[in-house]
């Protein structure tokens, strides 16, 4: 389904959506949002891209199989879950950097956890959708 209008629009919608998804990710701890919604929005951005430019083009854009995002994301989340164990704390305990960062606020392990979730969600949604669109039955 080629459409110049859609293609052009996607060219600037994609970065906007991605930016917005990161925005949702980072502020989830304070306002509605978080890793899930962020990841969903980001994947929707790529889905849109794949609608317009074809799945292959999107794969090229990503530079890797979306499936490979899953272990990365899971790894990050899982690591941030077990990290407190090294400090003698139960898993999942929030660890916080003392300094407040501008714009983002406090940085803690929960942010890394959310980043992991974000990546997993992207990997999952894209894997599902791209696999479907690349498979013919």
């Amino acid at each position, binding site marked *: 389904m080629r459409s110049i209008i859609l293609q052009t629009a996607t060219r600037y919608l994609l970065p906007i959506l991605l930016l917005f998804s990161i925005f949702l990710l980072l502020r989830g701890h*304070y306002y*509605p949002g978080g890793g899930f919604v962020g990841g969903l929005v980001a994947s929707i951005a790529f889905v849109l891209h794949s609608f317009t430019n074809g799945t292959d083009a999107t794969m090229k854009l990503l530079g890797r199989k979306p499936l490979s995002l899953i272990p990365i994301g899971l790894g990050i989340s899982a690591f941030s879950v077990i990290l407190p164990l090294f400090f003698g704390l139960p898993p999942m305990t929030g660890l916080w950097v003392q300094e407040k960062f501008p714009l983002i606020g406090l940085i803690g392990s929960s942010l890394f956890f959310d980043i992991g979730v974000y990546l997993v969600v992207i990997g*999952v949604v894209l894997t*599902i959708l791209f*696999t479907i669109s690349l498979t013919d039955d």
Partner: protein
Amino acid sequence: MELLLIIVLGLLYAGGVYFILRRSMVKLLLGIMLLGSATNILIFVLGSIVKGSPPVIDADHDTFSGIYADPVPQALILTAIVISFALTAFAIVLLKRVYALVQTDDLDNLNTPEEEDI
């Protein structure tokens, strides 16, 4: 407003049940999704429902000053929604594969007899 939600969830349950009693695989899927929504609303309605007071603490406060919606059901439903999505996605694809294999959407055709077992 709770009454309204209660009616809605009843209808969603009813609709979901009706759909899973059909023969079509697509309807089965829709039914499952309806049941999922119904359950979510049920959980939602059983917490304390408040209008217009999301469980988000004001920027200049450390705790809530007024009333707020019960955050726990919301968190539970969020988890449930995401899980149902995973299940639904997989189910949809399963549907696709089954259709590719048996060329029908009719659930009654999914009975390979015992004689054909390996």
